[in-house]
C-alpha cells in the first residue's frame, strides 16, 4: 500500500494487508522487510575463547563483506511466513483433486512419529550399535513394501519417484550387462509421465514410444512391433495415467520377457491397487513407489518424498548399498549386495519421510490399505458417472483411482478451456485437477479425488464443476477473482526472467519496486 500523501511505500512486518483475511495486497519479500542491524538469532553460551575471524581464517579465504542474508526481527519473520501460509492452498484447507498426485489427507499422527527425538536426532553415520531402532524400522518397511508389491527385496534410498525410476533403470542396465547383453531402448506408452522418458535418457537408453489404443490401454500389437533384441525393458504405470487398468498386462509381460526385456512398474498409481493386486504378480521386475503419494508423506509444497524401489529375486543382488539387514541374532546392521550398482543417495534415503510412511502403514494395516484402494476407486468412479454428460469422458470405461475428463466440448461451445475450468474451480473453493496431462487427451482434466474425501465433498466438487460448465465463457476466463492474485502472467516470467530478488530490474513491476529497498526507518 502506498501512502497517498508521500507516495512512498511503507514496508512493514506488522501489516497484514497481504493476508487474504484482511486484503489483497502484495506481501513484501524478506529483503524488503530487512532493516540494517536487526536480527532474530541468539546463540548458546559456549565458554569458548572468542577468536576473531582473522585469527581463524587465512586472509585469502576470508570474506571482505559479510554475505547479505536479511535483517529481520523474529516478530516480522514469523508474521511474514505466517501470512505467506495464508496465501497458500493445501490439503488441510480442502480437496486437492490433482490427478496422478494423490493429494490425500495425511494423518497428523505421522507428523508426530517423524518428529520423535529418537528418530530425528540420529546421525546417519552413527554405527549400527547406536541405531538399532532405525535399522529395524527400515528393514520392516522394506519387508512391508515387498509384501505390498509382491517383490523380493527393496532399496529405500531413492528420495523421490524420479530417482526411483533412474535407480530402476540402472538396475536394468546392470542386469543386462551381467547377462552380457547390450540393450539400447526402453519402451514407454504415450500416456506416460514425463519423468519416465527423462529417466530413460539418464539411464543411457533411448525412449521408444508405444501408442495407446482406443481403449486408452497399451496397444499390444504396436508394442509387439517394437519388441526386439535392443529392448532393455518397458516402463508402465498400472493403472495408467488415464486411470485405467492395463488389462493385458500378463500378455504384455510375457511379450517383453520373451525378448529378454524387463518390466518396470511406475508406482505413482499404487494407491489404486493396494491389497487388490500386486505388480509382482503382474510380471513386473522392478517397482518404484511414491511413498509421498500412496503412504501419506505430505508433499510439502513439492517435496520431500521417498521413492523406494523393489525388485524381483533375480535383481536383488544389484540393489544399491548399503542395505539395512536383520542378522541371525536378531540385531540389525548394514550389508552391500554383491553386485550393487552403488549408492543413489548421500545417506540412506529420506529417513524421516520413510518413518512417516511406516507409521501410516502401521495405522492402516493390511485391511486399511485395501480399504484405501477401494474408497479411492469408488470415489473416482462415482465422480466419473456424475460428470458424464457435463464433461467429455474420452475413455468412459471402468476407471481406477482417477479418471480423465476433458473440456473439449466446452471449449468448442463456449471457449472454456481446461485451464479456465481449473481457474474457475479455485473460486469454487477447490484446487484444480491436473490439466493438459496426459498429453494424449485434448483439454484434459485429470481428476483424482483420493479416498480421504467424503461423498459430500464429491457432491460439492461435482456441483462446482457443473456450475462452471453452465457458466459463460467470460466468467470462466476472468477467474480466479477471489484469490490473493488473479491469473498470473507466466509468459512474462519466462521472457523477463527474475529468478531472485537481486535480479529485479529497478522498476520491474512498473510501480514502487524501486523504493522498497530503502529502509522506511529513514523517513522518521
Amino acid at each position, binding site marked *: 500500500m502506498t501512502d497517498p500523501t508521500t507516495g512512498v511505500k511503507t514496508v512493514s512486518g506488522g501489516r497484514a494487508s497481504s493476508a487474504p483475511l484482511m486484503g489483497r495486497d502484495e506481501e513484501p519479500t524478506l529483503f524488503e522487510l530487512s532493516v540494517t542491524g536487526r536480527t532474530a538469532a541468539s546463540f548458546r553460551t559456549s565458554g569458548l575463547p572468542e577468536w576473531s575471524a582473522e585469527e581463524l581464517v587465512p586472509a585469502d579465504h576470508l570474506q571482505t563483506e559479510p554475505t547479505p542474508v536479511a535483517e529481520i526481527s523474529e516478530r516480522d519473520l514469523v508474521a511474514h511466513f505466517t501470512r505467506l501460509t495464508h496465501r497458500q492452498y493445501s490439503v488441510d484447507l480442502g480437496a486437492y483433486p490433482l490427478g496422478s498426485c494423490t493429494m490425500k489427507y495425511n494423518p497428523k*499422527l505421522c507428523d508426530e512419529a517423524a518428529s520423535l527425538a529418537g528418530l530425528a536426532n540420529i546421525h546417519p553415520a552413527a554405527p549400527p550399535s547406536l541405531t538399532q531402532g532405525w535399522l529395524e524400522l527400515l528393514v520392516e518397511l522394506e519387508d512391508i513394501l515387498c509384501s505390498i508389491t509382491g517383490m523380493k527385496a527393496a532399496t529405500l534410498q531413492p528420495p523421490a519417484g524420479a530417482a526411483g525410476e533412474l535407480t530402476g533403470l540402472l538396475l536394468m542396465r546392470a542386469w543386462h550387462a551381467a547377462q552380457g547383453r547390450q540393450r539400447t531402448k526402453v519402451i514407454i506408452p504415450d500416456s506416460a509421465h514425463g519423468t519416465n522418458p527423462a529417466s530413460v535418457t539418464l539411464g543411457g537408453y533411448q525412449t521408444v514410444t508405444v501408442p495407446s489404443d482406443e481403449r486408452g490401454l497399451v496397444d499390444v500389437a504396436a508394442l509387439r512391433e517394437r519388441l526386439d533384441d535392443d529392448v532393455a525393458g518397458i516402463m508402465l504405470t498400472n493403472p495408467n495415467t488415464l486411470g485405467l487398468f492395463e488389462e493385458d498386462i500378463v500378455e504384455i509381460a510375457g511379450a517383453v520377457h520373451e525378448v529378454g526385456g524387463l518390466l518396470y512398474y511406475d508406482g505413482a498409481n499404487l494407491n489404486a491397487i493396494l491389497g487388490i493386486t500386486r505388480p509382482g504378480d503382474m510380471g513386473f521386475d522392478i517397482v518404484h513407489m511414491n511413498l509421498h503419494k500412496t503412504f501419506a508423506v505430505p508433499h510439502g509444497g513439492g517435496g520431500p518424498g521417498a521413492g523406494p524401489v523393489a525388485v524381483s529375486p533375480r535383481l536383488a543382488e544389484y540393489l544399491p548399498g548399503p542395505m539395512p539387514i536383520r542378522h541371525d541374532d536378531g540385531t540389525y546392521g548394514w550389508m552391500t549386495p554383491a553386485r550393487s550398482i552403488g549408492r543413489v*543417495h548421500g545417506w540412506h534415503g529420506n529417513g*524421516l519421510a520413510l518413518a512417516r510412511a511406516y507409521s501410516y502403514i502401521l495405522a492402516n494395516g493390511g485391511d486399511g490399505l485395501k480399504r484405501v484402494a477401494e474408497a479411492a476407486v469408488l470415489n473416482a468412479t462415482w465422480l466419473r458417472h456424475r460428470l458424464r454428460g457435463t464433461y467429455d469422458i474420452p475413455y468412459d470405461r471402468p476407471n481406477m483411482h482417477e479418471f480423465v475428463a476433458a473440456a473439449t466440448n466446452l471449449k468448442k461451445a463456449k471457449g472454456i478451456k481446461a485451464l479456465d475450468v481449473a481457474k474457475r474451480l479455485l473460486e469454487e473453493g477447490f484446487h484444480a485437477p491436473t490439466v493438459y496431462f496426459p498429453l494424449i487427451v485434448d483439454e484434459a482434466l485429470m481428476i483424482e479425488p483420493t479416498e480421504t474425501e467424503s461423498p459430500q465433498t464429491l457432491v460439492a466438487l461435482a456441483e462446482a464443476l457443473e456450475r462452471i460448465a453452465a457458466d459463460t465463457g467470460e466468467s470462466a476466463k476472468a477467474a480466479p477473482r477471489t484469490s490473493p492474485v488473479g491469473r498470473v502472467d507466466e509468459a512474462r516470467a519466462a521472457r523477463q526472467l527474475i529468478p531472485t530478488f537481486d535480479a529485479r530490474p529497478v522498476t520491474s513491476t512498473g510501480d514502487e519496486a524501486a523504493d522498497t529497498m530503502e529502509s522506511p526507518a529513514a523517513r522518521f
Partner: protein
Amino acid sequence: MGHFVPHTDAEIAEMLAFVGLSSLDELFEAVPAALRLAGGLDLAPGLSEPDVAVEMERLADANVAVGRDLVCFAGGGAYDHEIPSVVRRVAYRSEYVTAYTPYQPEVSQGVLQTLFEYQTLIARLTGLPIANASLYDGATACVEAVNLAVAATGNQRVLVSRGVNPQWREVVRTYAVGTGHEIEEIALEDGLTAWSSVSGSAGAVLVQYPNYLGCLEDLAEARRVADATGALLLVAFDPVAAGLVRSPGSYGADVVVGEGQPFGTPLGFGGPYLGLFACKQEHVRRLPGRLVGETVDTEGRRAYVTTLRTREQDIRREKASSNVCTNQTLIAVCCTIQLAWLGTAGLREMALRCARATRYTREAVLAIDGVGPLASAPVLREFAISLPNGMSGETVVERMADEGFLAGIPLGAEYGGGLLIAATERRTRTEIDAYAAALEKVVR
C-alpha cells in the same frame, strides 16, 4: 483399520448403487481374476493412533540419540546445528506441509514466494545469480552439476577431487553408469586436491570447499585448472562457510552445489535433506529442477510462478535437463526460515562459532598422545586426525559412545584411516573438554 477413509457403509452402498455396482469388488473387474490378491495383503491389521505411537516410540527409544544420549562431534555432511523454535513452528504449518507443487500460482503464492526468497538466499550465499528451488541432497546435486557441465562442454571426462565427500563421489559414479560419463579422481596431498596432477581436457572439475577433511581448498587454483582443461568448475560448497569465507562464485565457479541440511533440518538419519544448486546465468536453460520467477497478475500485482518450465521433464520429456519432479521444497522452506532467523550477522556469528569450537576441539584433541593431524591445511568446522597404534576410527566411535559422545566419522582407507571430527556452534567448552578427556582415555 483405515481410520482415514470417511465413508460409512451406508454411503458406500449408495455410491455403488449410483454407479450400478453391487460390491466394492466389482470396482476392480478390470483387474484379471488371476491377478487378484485373494486373501488381501499379508500385513498386520491396522493399529489405533495410540498403539502406533507406542510402536514408533519403541523404535525411537531403540536408537541412541544426539542431544538426549550423546554429544555430537560427527559431521561428514550431516551436522548438529541449532534449530530455533521458529523453524519448527512456522515451516511446519500445515499449508507448507500439505501443499503440492505450486501448479496453480493464484493459490500458491505462499510456497512460490518462499521459494523465490530461498533462491535469492542461495544465490547470495553461493555468489551466483541463479539458484533452483531445491534438489534432493548434496550428493545428487553433484550428479546434476556434472550432468550440466558435460552437456555444456560436450566432454564426458569428469574430474572429481578426492576431497569430495566419498559417499557423494560414489553417487556420482553410480549415476555415471547411465550417462556414460568417465569419472576420474584427483588425489589429495596433505588434505588438499593435488591440482598439479591434472592434465588433458575435461568437461567438469568437481571440488568440495571446505573439503571432506574440513580443509579449505584453493579455489583460485581450481578455477585455473578448470580453465586449462576446458571444464566447468563445479564447487560443492558448505553453506555455513558462507558466513566467513569468500563465495565460490567470487572465484568464478560455474556451478555451486551443496547440502542445505545445516540450516534448519535435523540429522534425521540422513534425510530428507536439501540439495543446493546455483549456476551462472549462461547455464540457466540447463538448470535442473524447478525455478520460480517474479511476474505480475492481471491487475499488475507482483506474483510468483514456476518458470522456464520447458527445461522440465513434464514438458520436455526425454530431452529434459533432468528427471527431477518432486524435490525438497519443505526443506527449502526450513532453510529459508532458518537463514532469515540468522540474518546477515547471525550467519557470520554461526560460522565464527563453528570455527572457534573446531579450533578449540582440534587443539584439545591434538594434545592427546599419539593423536596426530591428518592434514595441516586450515579448517573451519571439521578436521581429521590419525589415531595411535593403528586403532580404527570404528573402535574409537564405539568406545566413545559409552562415554556419551558420538566421536566422529571413521575415515576410510583412501584417507589412511583416522577420524573425522566436527564441532558446531552448539558445542560448549565443557562438552569439548569432556570429549577430549574421554578420547584420551579411549585411545590409551
